[in-house]
Every structure is written in C-alpha cells, then in structure tokens.
C-alpha cells in the first residue's frame, strides 16, 4: 500500500511538473515604462501561449520556435510554451488581452484570429494585439477520390455551376472557418454561386475517410493532409492554393489553381503576436529575433519536416497584411451570411 501511495504521489508530482513547469512566467506585470526608446532585453522568462491544445499546428509552431530560440542561443532567457485551448482560440486570446503592456508574453496565431471574431465568437481580434512577426506559411489543397470524374479544378467548378446540389465539399472545421473559406474563395473566383455550395464539416471522423468511401466529393484541407494519399494513388489533388507549385516530390506534381486560370491564392500564414500595448522597444527586439529564427538552418530543417514554407513579415508589414486579409474575408463571410454581430 505504501508503495502504491508513494508511487502515485510520484506520478502526480511528475504530472504537476509537466503541467505547471511552464507556468512560472505567467501573470507578470514588470512592465518597463521608462524604456520608451533604445535597447530592450527580456529580464525574465518568456511565455508563449498556444491558444489550442497540445499537438495542433499552433502548439507545434510555438514549441518548435521556442526550441530553436533556446538551442541556437538566439534568446538566452527561458521560454515556456503554455496551452490555453478553448473556443477555437478565444479563451487564449482573452487570457492574453489581460496581460496588457507585458513584454514577456507572446502568442502564436493564424487566420482564425481574423475569422473567429468575424463570426462573432471572440470579442478580441488581431487589432487588439501587437503583431510581431509572421514566420511560416502553408497552403490549402482540394482533392477528390481517384475515381472521381473531375480531372482538374475547372471541370469541378463547371459541374458546380450547373448543379451545385450534386457536389458535397468536406472539411474538418465548421463553415466560416479556414477549410470552408479557402474553397469558397476559389469557387467565387471561378464564378460559382458560393451561397449554394454544400459544405459538410467532419470534425470527428476525418474528412479524408469521406472522400475515400465516396460519401463526399471534394476535400478542402491543408496540403500536408493529402500528400500520402495522393502518393498512394487513392486521391487526386485538383489544385493547391499557392502562387507557384510547391517543392518536393509528389508536392511538385500538384497543379496550382493559378495555372488553371483561376486567379486566386490562399495562404495559411502563421505568426507571433504580443499583448495589447507592448513597448515598441520590445517589439523591435522580438522582430529581430524572429528574423534570426526564420533565417536559421535549424528552423529551415523544421520547416522542411512539416512541409511549411518560409514567410517572414516584420511587425509593420504584418499588420498591414492582416488588415487587408480581414477585409477580404469579411466580404466573403458577408456574402455567405456567416458574419456574427
């Protein structure tokens, strides 16, 4: 019995350490009001929040960035990654919004920080935070079963124009989020009536299952999700959403929409933000560090492992990019009647 107790205590302790080990830097309020100009250096450990659970894209990006920062000695202070899952990011954003003025709290985000507030499910959007730098991009893909009648994107869109009710599009996330919107953007550019597109969200059983067994027709997802199935010849990738063909075997076989005459691009960008009111000096510091990260060989290797593309943008450029992107997304959501209040 004693053994059981002490062992269980040990396991608990281990769990606690694993859970809380990264938490020591949260809730700080040592803002440095006097350092309005000049050099700024972190004075304590830095916390990067991934507003999602462990194992997802945001979590991976945050952990990989933290790892390279430390291993390459780019930042000498400790960096902890903390998961704040919930509400498609909304719980994490609310947490960061409370760290106003802190220079030691960062978080990672991508298009949901534009889409979730637009659909009315988060009171905070990118305007409420301090964009620091974008680091990576990946792209979407549209795939169909290998036995499907469509050889390219145009054939699919032609059929959709004729009878939109005969074609089902499947994605992992809900309508108004990335998988849906990226498809809608291309369909719109091709002249399809986007209000009639049949979209199914398959959050539990993956969308790929529905393509393989023929329940749904088109899979709208990230490029990484389709590579293996395409290599095995189970599915056909009609188009990727990038500007130019991607590098890598199999990847380079996927045609872009652009080369098929549909002038549209969708980038799934991913970058880092700070809380509201971060000091300009701190923003400058992190901006330079993320540039160093993005240029490092170690991070290049990680990008290659995950099939990410390099896409660095500094704070100013990033902010402008986000504003434009949000405007374009807003008009699409409005047309689909998915805007929240």
């Amino acid at each position, binding site marked *: *019995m004693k053994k*059981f107790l002490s062992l*269980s205590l040990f*396991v*608990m302790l*281990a*769990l606690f350490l*694993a*859970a809380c080990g990264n938490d020591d830097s949260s809730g700080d309020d040592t803002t440095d009001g006097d350092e309005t100009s000049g050099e700024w250096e972190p004075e304590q450990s830095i916390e990067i929040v991934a507003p999602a*659970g*462990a*194992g*997802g894209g945001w979590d*991976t990006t945050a952990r990989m960035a933290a790892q390279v920062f430390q291993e390459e000695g780019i930042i000498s202070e400790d960096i902890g990654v*903390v*998961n*704040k*899952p*919930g*509400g*498609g990011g*909304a*719980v994490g954003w*609310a947490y960061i919004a409370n760290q106003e003025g802190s220079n030691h709290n960062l978080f990672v985000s991508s298009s949901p920080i534009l889409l979730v507030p637009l*659909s009315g*499910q*988060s009171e905070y959007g990118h305007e409420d935070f301090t964009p620091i730098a974008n680091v990576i991009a990946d792209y979407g893909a549209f795939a169909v079963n290998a036995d499907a009648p469509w050889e390219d994107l145009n054939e699919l869109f032609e059929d959709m124009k004729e009878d939109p*009710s005969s074609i*089902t599009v499947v994605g992992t*996330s*809900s*309508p*108004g*989020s990335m998988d849906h919107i990226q498809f809608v953007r291309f369909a719109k550019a091709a002249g399809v009536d986007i209000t009639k597109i*049949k*979209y*199914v*969200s*398959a*959050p*539990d*059983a*993956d969308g*790929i*299952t*529905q393509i*393989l*067994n*023929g*329940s*749904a027709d088109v899979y709208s997802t990230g490029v990484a999700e389709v*590579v*293996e*199935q395409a*290599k*095995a010849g*189970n599915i056909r990738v009609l188009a990727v959403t990038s500007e130019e063909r991607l590098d890598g075997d199999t990847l380079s076989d996927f045609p872009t929409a652009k080369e098929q005459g549909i002038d549209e691009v969708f980038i799934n960008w991913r970058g880092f933000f700070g809380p509201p009111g971060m000091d300009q000096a701190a923003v400058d510091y992190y901006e330079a560090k993320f540039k160093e990260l993005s240029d490092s060989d170690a991070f290049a290797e990680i990008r290659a*492992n*995950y099939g990410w593309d390099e896409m660095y943008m500094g704070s100013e450029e990033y902010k402008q990019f986000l504003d434009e992107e949000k405007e374009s997304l807003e008009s699409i959501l409005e047309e689909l009647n*998915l805007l929240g209040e």
Partner: protein
Amino acid sequence: MDGVLEGIVSGLQVAFSLQGILFVLIGVFIGTFIGMLPGLGPISAIAIMIPLTYGMDPALALVLMAGVYYGAVFGGSTSSILLNAPGISGTVATSFDGYPMAQQGKAGKALAVAAISSFAGGTISVILLMIFAPVLASVAISFGPPAYFALMLLGLTAIASLSEGSTLKALISAVVGFMIVTIGIDPQTGTARFTFGSANLLDGIDFLVIALGLFALAEVGYLIINRKQKGMKNAKEIGSLKLTKEDAKEMGGPISRHSILGFIIGILPGAGATIASFISYITEKRISKKPEEFGKGSVKGLAAPEVSNNAATSGAFVPLLSLGIPGSGTTAVMLGALLVMGIQPGPLLMTDRPEIFWGVIASMYIGNIFLLILNLPLIPYIARVLTIPRPLLISMVIMFSVIGVYSISFNTFDLYLLLAFGVIGFLMRMFAFPAPPFILAFILGGMMEQAFRQSMTISNGSLMIFIENKIALVLIILSLLSFLYPIYQSYRNKKRAAREVG
C-alpha cells in the same frame, strides 16, 4: 507476400530487440499506472511522453507510445471498479458491474476478471491485427455518415437496458445528456449554441467533467451521506482474487465474442473503445440468460466491456498505421508526435517503413503479457485502496478528480463545471435517476447529431440515404430489433403470467 513476411521479420526484430522490450515495459508500466489514477487517461499519459520521444528512433517511440496507450486502457478499469471514477470514456461501462462487485466485497475478483479480460481482448485483437492488417484499411473507411448515424443509434438502444427501475427516469436522464452535448460551437453551421456568451463553453463540455462529476463526485456525496450505514463495512473487504471454474466459464463467451466485436468497432475512426464497450455490454446483456444480474456485479457484465475496450484499442491502430487517419484523440496525439520525427503515417507506411508498422504490432504481444504480469500480482495491493479510511479515500478521489479535469485545459472554469455536475449527479442518485443513460447520450449524441446532419446535407434532405446505404440499413434493423425485443419479452412475460393466474 514476400514483402509482408520480410516486414513482419523486421518488425519482430524491433520488438524483440533489447531496447524494444525495454520501451514496451516502460510504456505499459507508465500507461497502466497513469490509467489507474482516477481522472487521468491515455491522452494525458501520452502528452507527457512526447517530449521524451524527440530524437528517438521512430519505431521505438511509437512502440513506447502505443504501450502507454493500451497500458492506460488496461489500467483504466481499476479506478472504475474500485472508486466508480472512470478516467476514460472506454471504461465507463466497466463501472456498471465492476463497482457493484467491489462494493460486495469482491474487489479482488473484479480486478482479476478485468485484468484477464483485458489481456484476452488485447492479445486476440493483436493476432487479428497481424493477420488482417493489410486488408483492414478498406474496413476502416467503409463507414460513411449514414452508417455512423446508424451505429450510434444501435448504441443508444442500450438506454433501455441501462435503466434499473423506471424507464421514464432513464429516458429523462438521456434527454438531459443530449441537451448538454449540444452546448458549444455547432460544427455544421459554426454557430455557438447555449454558451450564453461565455468563451469557456465554446468547445462544449469535456467528457471527463461529466464522468467524474456524475460518477466519482456523486458517489463521494453518497458515501458521506450514508457513512453510518452498516452495508458500507462490506466494501472494505477485498475478497479472494481466485476465480472459480464457473467464473472462468462465464468469461469464455464474452472473451470470444467481444474480442472480435470490439476490434471491428475499434477500427472505425471516431467510434473507438467507448462505443465498443457499450455495444458489447448491451449485446452481452441481451443474449444473457440472466439479464437481471447485470448492473449488480455480473462477471459477464464486467468481462464484456473490458474485453471489448482493449480489443478496440488495437483496432484503433488500423486506420492510424494503414491510412494515417487518427481514429481518436489519443491516436491523433500520437500522429502528431510521429510527424515531428519526420514519419508521415499513411497508406505507404507499411511498404516504406515496415519496421515501424510491424514493430508496433509485434510489440503489442509483449506489452499485453507484461501488463498481465504487472497487474495480476499487484491486485491485492491495489485493491487495498479500499481499506484506506473513508475520509482519506474520499479526499483522494476529490483531489484526483480535480487534477484530472484541470489537466485537460488548465482552466478553472472546468472545475466549477465539475462541481456543478457533481451536485447534479448527487441529486440524480438521491432521486433515483440513473447516470449511465446520461453519459451514454452525451457520448453518442454529439457524433450522432453530426452524422445525421452530414447525411442530410449530402442527400439534400432526403431520409432515403439511410435505407440506400447498406451498412446503415442493417444497423438500423438491428437497432429496431434491439429496441423492440425487450418490449416483446415483457409483453410475453405478462401474458404468460396472466395465463398462469387465469
């Protein structure tokens, strides 16, 4: 065929290498231990292991993580049986008969039945996995939305069999479970439902909050209220863990049936161990000659879900390894870890990296044997948890429940929810509303609703899709039979009773 044989050999080399055996042992030990703690399941166990696997050989890393996974399912029955505190949804059905058995002073026997059933389910399913893995990929994708809907429907017919006493109360309980699962963002439209503007509710309520609230905390409340009762004394006894010949005979049927049934359901992405264990439980009750014993400490009622959830765990590796489709939250975490190591599981894994594919499968044989060796001798010690003075034991259950729930999202809001569901569960017990229909409706309801609405979108609103889909049609007919048979039975019994009287 040569390629497959070579693959199996290279897999055996991985599994039987010194490192392979060592990592299996570490994996199952950590897994079974974390699984035993109430409130902690395989996802938390694997999440802890991930940093350890960075830089490891991918085959060994997967062997380790797989060990943690099925180890946690193996050990998960312990907290269900002893404390009525299931840490994973797959062991909820285990508590239906396991906990009453422990309360009757037969904790040792209950744990032994669970361990042997788990071992049998795990081992038989690994054999099935090894023989059929190459052809099973097509089974894994054979279910479209209409078939999933019908499968959930079949699971739901269990509500009638889970009700002790009032069927009406069981139905009310199930309806509340359905209502609770609709909270959060609706995936088909993207709108938030019943969140009252709170970001904390956007993702819905986690299974663990409900299970630990309705089962563990409600039980704690009940124990406190009834602490003076004499019957409580019994529960302190552990009893012999020797199984009689009859016990062994009782287990034979469930083992042979549910290792296959559980395995097949486990293969389906999204269905997994939970649904397998529930369906096994009701099937066993339906075909039993003594259904009235179920829910009161039946050996068959304990063995069936335990065989099934372990068999389903092996089954879950089919879509992961042969298609790269994670069938559950746990396998999704494992998929993420594999990606970090530069391995993309998919249809080509078996030919490109046979040592990974077959290495994991071969290691499961060893893992299951280790689990049995680890668990059986420990049973008397583990069961002694029950001899801990009540006040201390109750405090420990509360503490573990809080840790388990907090470790899902590190959000204190979930702790208030846990407390709320503890109160609800306690009131339900006081007024004799059964909790199992609630949790069953909660588990199945979400997937059922999604599958139904996906089907409706695909068919442009025509219900014919459920009849045109052959798998769905068969499952719906089975559901109808499963639903109508008890009604017919009670009608016949009444008639016979009337005739005897008349």
